[in-house]
Every structure is written in C-alpha cells, then in structure tokens.
C-alpha cells in the first residue's frame, strides 16, 4: 500500500486539478497540498524500506512474473523521496514564479503527472512498464516545455522531443528483443533467465541498445545535445524540476539495469561506462565554461555531473556505487536550487544574460548567499554535500586503481568551480553596467519589476533557502546519508534480495 502512494497521490492531485480547471486558487492549493502529501508518504516509504528491507506489491493481484510488480529497494525509495523533495520545493516556488496564463492552462496538473511518471519509473519492477513511465514523463514534460508557446520554447521542445522519442524507440526495440530472447519482462525474472545466455551476442546487443537509450535520457556523452538546447527555454520552475529529476531517471535506469540484469558483462559494460563518464564530465564542463547565459551554464553543468553519477557504475565496486548514489542525492538538490536561484535573479533584474546582469551582491546580499551555497557545493567545497560526494567517488576510484579517471574527476571539479565563479563574478560582483541603448526602457521598467519581485519572490526565496539548508545538512550529516547510500549500493551489488522480494509472493 505504501508503494502505491507515490503514484496514486500525484494522479489524484492531477485529476482534482482537472476538475478545478477554472479556479486558479484551488489549483494552486492543490498543487502544493499534493506535493506535501507526496513528500510525507515518500519519506514514510523510505523509512519503512530502511527498517524492513525491500518491499513489493503485485498490481492487480497477478502472481509474478506475469503481472506488473511495484518494488522499492533502498535505491528506489531514496529516489522517490528526492523526487518528492524537488516536487514540493518547485510547487512552492511555482506559486510565486509561474505566470497566471500558464497556471490557467493546467500547469499544476501537468507538474503532478510528471511527478507520477518519475515516481512510477523509480518503483516499477517491469521493463515494459518502465518504458510506459518514460512515456508518461515524456508527454508531461513536452507539454510543460511547450506550454506558453514562445518561439524559443517551441524550438527547444522540438529538439527535446525528437531525441527523446529516438531514445524511446531504441528502448522499445531492446525490450522487444529481450522479450523474444527470454520470454519475460519482469526484471527479476529476466535477471535469472538471462544468466545462461550471458555471453551470447544477442545479450550484448540488448545491453548496448539499453545503454544508448538510457544514455540519451541521462544525457551522457555523446548523446546530450538535447539538454542544453532545451532546458533554458521554459519558465524557471519547469527547468528546475527537469534539471533535478529527468536526467536522473535515466541514471537510475542505468544503475538498475546494469547492476541487476547485465552483470555477467562485468568486463565490457563498466569499461565503456567509465570511458563515457570521463568524456561526459569533460565535454559538459568545457561547454559550461564558454557559455554566458545563466541557465545554459547550469545545463552544461548537469551534463558534466551526470559523468560523476555514472562513474561509480563504471568502477563497479560497492564503494563506487555508494559514491554514485550519494552524488545523485547531492546533485538533485543542488542543481534544482541553482535553477531556482537563476529564476530569483531573473525576477530582480529581468535577464539571464551574464553580460546584462550585475551588482546583485550590493543590492541583494541574501540572494548572493543563496547562490553561493549550492554553487560551492556543486564544485565540491567542504563542508557542503558536493565535497563528500566527490570524496567518495575519488576514494573509490583510487581503490580501483583507476588513476586517470580520478585525475579527470578532480580537474573537472576545478573547472566547475571556474564556471560557478564566472557566474559569481558577473552576476553578483561586477557593478551593473548602465546600457546606454536600453537605459530609458530599463529605467521605466525597473521600478515595477523590482516591486513585483519583492512581492513575489518571498515564497521562491523560502523554497530555495530550504534546499540550501538541505545541502548543508547533507554535508554536515554526511555519515548519516552515507549509511543510506552504502546500504543501497550493497543491495545493488547483491541483487538476490531484490530478486527474491520480487518473485516471492509474501503478504501484500
């Protein structure tokens, strides 16, 4: 029953939102209330999985492996809890920063459908069902991306949808091949039945098809181009929730499939993933360094940090996987927060362009602190969460004697710091240039904008501050979080528990 809430609550919220289409106030209330309910239930789920081990429910009461199984091991439960945190923070932020026209066109129901898709993908134990949740996510995110119909938005949305549909097609092809090979799609059942076929060519082909499909979703090198092309176009609240959650679903799928099903390919897949991880880190951060638009810098940083998240998978040790999971926990919170801050900056000065921003440290010191905390955390400055996340991965890399990847990871975090300091210097430090061309219009536009910002941004500030506190807490209580990450990694490395939970019908 607990497993059901992360799917049923967003769906209920969305349905109620459809009924309350004309009452914007009701929709806003529902949006936040639904997210709060999701937050509470998902942490209850995490607590019970932590205390009692993996749990499963068999949808429709079909015995496994025939029906769809929903299953939560520690990794799934952690991911669902993170999705709920981001959902709640963004729902609060949206109250202040999403315009009434978008709200009137069903912004909140769509946000909750998206959350349902994300939670469903984390909880399902069936590969075809995973595909369905990907599609639910894709549809909701496409509409959210295009909602408002601005020219840049539509351009971004087309690139986004085209490449993601290609990923879906590859995924579906792989699922079809897999079903043809082993005759089942229940992940645990597949894991058992594919073992004797592990060295056959078809298994390797399926593994690489899935690697490509999930790689596009997760935006790893060389398949990440849709991400920086689209994430800076929609309203900030939308980019923030995309940045926090969508690519991580791809990373989750990679972690799940390559620790559960294709473990016999212990040589090939992790080696490839390790190389991809290095290239993803490098290209992402180099892209970030040359950009001069706030959200594009952040978008390239997402790509770069996906590299860190799959680094642990490439090492394929318990310590490495724990590092990856810690990194995901850290990164989801930090990157969402940075996007939220970019929106707060935009609310004050009306631009995302570094050249046209400036002087915010003087006028809004609080905002500067709000930026600095996640920015330093992203680059790995102690005692914030990013430091421990990187430390774990580096240590795991040294243990596995992968010197080159360790060197790259360390170098990339310096470059990340560089890209963050570029934003800091341009947006917060540098005095705001008075632009003679737009001086008149800016002068006439600034007072109402600043006033509106002051009015609107309080909720936005609160949600951003909440995430900043969370980042600091993960850093200060790293032991506690690490215990979760290590236990989750342990479960990934020894999938027998997951398999037996899924296939043995206990009490529902």
């Amino acid at each position, binding site marked *: 029953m607990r497993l059901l809430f992360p799917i049923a609550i967003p769906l209920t919220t969305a349905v109620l939102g459809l*009924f309350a289409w004309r009452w914007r106030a009701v929709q806003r209330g529902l949006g936040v209330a639904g997210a709060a309910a999701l937050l509470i239930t998902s942490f209850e789920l995490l607590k019970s999985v932590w205390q009692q081990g993996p749990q499963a*429910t068999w949808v429709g009461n079909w015995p496994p492996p025939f029906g769809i199984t929903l299953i939560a091991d520690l990794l799934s439960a952690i991911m669902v809890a993170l999705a709920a945190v981001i959902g709640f923070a963004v729902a609060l932020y949206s109250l202040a920063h999403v315009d009434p026209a978008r709200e009137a066109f069903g912004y909140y129901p769509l946000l909750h459908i998206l959350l349902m898709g994300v939670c469903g993908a984390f909880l399902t134990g069936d590969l075809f069902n995973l595909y369905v949740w990907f599609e639910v996510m894709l549809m909701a995110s496409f509409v959210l991306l295009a909602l408002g119909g601005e020219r840049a938005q539509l351009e971004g949305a087309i690139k986004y949808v085209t490449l993601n549909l290609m990923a879906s097609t590859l995924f579906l092809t792989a699922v079809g091949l897999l079903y043809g090979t082993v005759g089942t799609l229940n992940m645990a059942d597949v894991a058992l039945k594919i073992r004797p076929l592990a060295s056959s060519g078809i298994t390797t082909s399926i593994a690489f098809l899935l690697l490509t499909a999930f790689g596009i979703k997760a935006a790893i090198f060389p398949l990440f181009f849709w991400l920086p092309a689209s994430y800076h176009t929609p309203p900030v609240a939308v980019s923030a929730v995309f940045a926090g959650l969508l690519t991580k679903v791809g990373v989750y799928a990679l972690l799940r499939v390559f620790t559960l099903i294709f473990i016999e390919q212990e040589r090939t897949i992790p080696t490839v993933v390790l190389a991809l991880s290095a290239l993803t880190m490098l290209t992402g951060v180099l892209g970030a360094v040359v950009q001069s638009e706030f959200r594009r810098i952040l978008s390239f940083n997402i790509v770069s940090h996906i590299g860190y998240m799959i680094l642990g998978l490439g090492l394929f040790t318990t310590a490495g996987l724990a590092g990856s999971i810690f990194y995901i926990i850290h990164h989801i919170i930090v990157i969402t927060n940075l996007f939220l801050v970019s929106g707060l900056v935009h609310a004050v000065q009306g631009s995302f362009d570094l050249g046209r921003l400036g002087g915010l440290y003087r006028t809004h010191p609080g905002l500067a602190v709000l930026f600095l905390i996640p920015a330093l955390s992203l680059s790995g400055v102690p005692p914030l969460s990013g430091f421990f996340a990187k430390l774990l991965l580096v240590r795991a890399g040294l243990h596995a004697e992968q010197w080159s990847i360790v060197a790259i990871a360390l170098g990339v975090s310096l470059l990340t710091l560089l890209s963050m300091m570029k934003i800091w210097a341009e947006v917060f430090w540098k005095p705001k240039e008075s632009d003679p061309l737009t001086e008149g219009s800016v002068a006439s536009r600034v007072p109402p904008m600043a006033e509106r910002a002051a009015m609107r941004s309080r909720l936005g500030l609160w949600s951003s501050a909440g995430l900043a506190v969370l980042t600091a807490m993960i850093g200060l209580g790293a032991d506690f979080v690490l215990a979760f990450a290590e236990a989750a990694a342990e479960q990934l490395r020894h999938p027998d528990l997951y398999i037996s939970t899924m296939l043995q019908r206990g009490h529902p």
Partner: protein
Amino acid sequence: MKRRRLEHSSEVHLRNAPLPALEWERASVILGVAVRALLPLLLLFSIFLLLRGHHAPGGGFIGGLVAAAAVALYALAYGATAAQQLLRLSPRGLVAAGLATALASALVGPLTGAPFLTGRWMKVGRLELGTPLLFDVGVFLVVIGVTLWIVLTLAEE
C-alpha cells in the same frame, strides 16, 4: 445526482436546444443528413464495443474512439460550437471524469485488502459487474475527452 454535478462544471447549459442549422458554406446537405442518422448509430455501437470488450475484441479505448469519431463527424457537418453544445460537458470534464472513474476502480482493490487494480466482482441478479468494467468506462471517457479536446481545439482555430 452525478449528472447534475457534472453539468454544473460544464461550460454550456443547454437543455432542450433545437438542432442547429446546417452551416451551408461549410458542409453539404448530404453530410448533414447522413450525420443525423449516423450519430445515434455510432454512439450505440461505441457502447456495444465498450461492453463487449471484456471477453471479445473491443473495449473502452476502441469504443471511445468510435464515440469521439461520431462527435467529430457532427463537428464537421455543423461546426465545432454545435458539437460542443451537443456534448454538453467540456472535453476536459470528460477527461477528468474518466480518470477519476478509472482511479476509483483501481482503488477498490486496496480498500478491500487486495493489491492495487485487483478485479472485484459483484452479482446483480444474473449480471456480473466488476471493477474491470468500471475501469473500461473510465478509459472510454478519457479517450472521448482527449480526442475531442484535440479535435475541437483544432476546429476552432
């Protein structure tokens, strides 16, 4: 009771409106007359498909498509506004009602101590009614709602 509540949320309040005049510039008389004859047939057929779907080809999805096609045909002959009035409910209301129905049928399982979406049956005389039928009705409504939402939006523009 339920019907009254749904009507309340709909955009159009039209009880005994006369059939709208044919839009002469838009459609032919033949189409208009044919649609009047086809509309009830198609709607009946869609319900037949919906009910047949449990054991034989058919079901909520295909039934919903046929029903939506009937209304879309009406929109072709008499215009989108007239089709909207014929529908009474907004397509969005249909989607919401359908999703709510499907969700309710899925929640019967957990409320009676079985997993999500478990089929539950009851006998009314010789008739066996179950949650799969309720779920299919939900799908039926969602498909009509979504299809007409798209069709009517495009037709208005």
